[in-house]
């Protein structure tokens, strides 16, 4: 079985994003970029399934600018076998990404596609579900544990009230939640080795996908700023303040 892992290059999760003064977006010039944290978890899970002898190849794929190659090299350094970059400088919405991934799935025929549950930049939480719908395949979103069992996969999902377990017939789509695993660090020898692993470059047109956005961003603004309030000296003063709020 083959596992396909889509990864996205996003602003590093530790960086506080700055909104551009002209309101057209967030300033990404000279900002540290990294692999989306949920995608690192997806790569790690795919590698663990392979290491358990339940998959024989892990293919990483990214849709984005030329620099997304670095993100793919990171996935290769973690242990992915090869990578596909669908290169475009346009911002590609989840629906178009899902369509590109669908075309890749149709040629690669993976048993599992493991994606992050959401990208920390657009916070959409859509791509995996859309891909599953386009392929007519089942989905195990917000996965907390993933267990491949013959031709099905058992996914424990994080839901609002707790956890839920579903059984999906493969091929299936899984999206990762944070507690699925702890991603490994790539060692220096593996980073060196990753440089010689195959990385194919394609374009959205190769897959016949139109990436024109359906949503037009009219403006991006700073959220309302919260002012720091007062510091109280001791618990008595805090008690008085809480009582004044009328909750106790």
């Amino acid at each position, binding site marked *: 079985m083959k596992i396909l892992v889509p990864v996205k290059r996003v602003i590093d999760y530790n960086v506080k994003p700055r909104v551009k003064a002209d309101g057209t977006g967030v300033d990404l010039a000279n900002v540290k970029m990294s692999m989306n944290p949920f995608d690192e978890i997806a790569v790690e899970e795919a590698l663990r399934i392979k290491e358990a002898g339940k998959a024989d190849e892990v293919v990483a794929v990214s849709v984005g600018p030329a620099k997304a190659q670095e993100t793919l090299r990171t996935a290769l350094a973690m242990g992915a076998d090869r990578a596909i970059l669908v290169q475009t400088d346009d911002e590609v919405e*989840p629906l178009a990404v899902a369509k590109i991934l669908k075309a890749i799935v149709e040629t690669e025929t993976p048993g599992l596609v493991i994606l992050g549950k959401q990208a920390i930049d657009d916070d959409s939480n859509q791509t995996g579900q859309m891909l599953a719908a386009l392929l007519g395949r089942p989905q195990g979103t917000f996965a907390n544990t993933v267990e491949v069992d013959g031709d099905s996969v058992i996914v424990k999902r994080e839901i*609002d009230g707790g956890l839920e377990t*579903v059984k999906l017939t493969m091929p299936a789509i899984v999206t990762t939640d944070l507690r699925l695993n702890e991603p490994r660090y790539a060692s220096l020898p593996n980073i060196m080795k990753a440089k010689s692993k195959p990385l194919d470059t394609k374009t959205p047109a190769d897959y016949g996908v139109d990436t024109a956005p*359906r949503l037009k961003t009219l403006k991006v603004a700073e959220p309302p700023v*919260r002012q720091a*309030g*007062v510091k109280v000296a001791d*618990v008595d003063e805090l*008690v008085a303040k809480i009582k004044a709020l009328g909750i106790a």
Partner: protein
Amino acid sequence: MKTLVLVEHDNASVKDATLSTVTAAAKLGEVHLLVAGSGCAAVADEAAKIAGVGKVHLADDAAYEHQLAENVAPLVASLMESHDAFLAPATTTGKNIAPRVAAQLDVMQISDIIGIEGDKTFTRPIYAGNAIATVESSDAKLVITVRGTAFDKAAAEGGSGTVEAVSGPGDAGTSSFVGSEIAKSERPELTSAKVIVSGGRALKDADTFKEYIFPLADKLGAGVGASRAAVDAGYVPNDFQVGQTGKIVAPEVYIAIGISGAIQHLAGMKDSKTIIAINKDEDAPIFQVADIGLVADLFKAVPELTEKL
């Protein structure tokens, strides 16, 4: 505009998240509801009483019992032939189903909206709430998930909707429900609690979390939340987590104890009306957003606070 709202329920009663979504839908036009489940006629009757609701579509079929997205999404897609917009609460249920519906209709979903600026124009937070985007859809049909804390709840009584049975394609046969582990709690549900007491890594372990946070929460009739660090360290189950990847809350009062205030945590609670922070590190970022801050050792301050309230 005719809107279709997904009712969040457990086959017994309507969940609160539905009510805020109805408010958002009413701003767009006529509100129809969808109750998909098994043995859930009572849910449909309850849903029909929500103020402002027209028709309630009831799809009662074993295939919908656990609201598996593979089965519910085609049902929604078929109902969308006679509706202009589909709205679901941005809960794990809504987030699971709605994008699948959107892809089936070949439209882009607008996730987690916090405002409605026009028929096709919405505001939504991006970058963990560090920016607010205003987006306009060019799609013929709208698929939207709604952030519950951003819209008032519609009144649960006073409506006079009519229930109409519908049937859908049924079981897609690609997935099945195995089981669930639902955390039991006597406390108010986190996303609808008026007061939340939340603990972070500084609580040390599961026992001290219980010992220090729960009595204070009980005293205030508050829901209990946690930072990701506290969840990862195993102090509390994951459904306590507040933040970008957990629950988004906006209570009247949020009390953050031993939480530094990383941007991922702030994304989940910074729209709370009043934020109170107790932390021994006076430089903790949480104090930059806290209305009331106390620099103190929580192991001394919290028991004292609980006792004096």
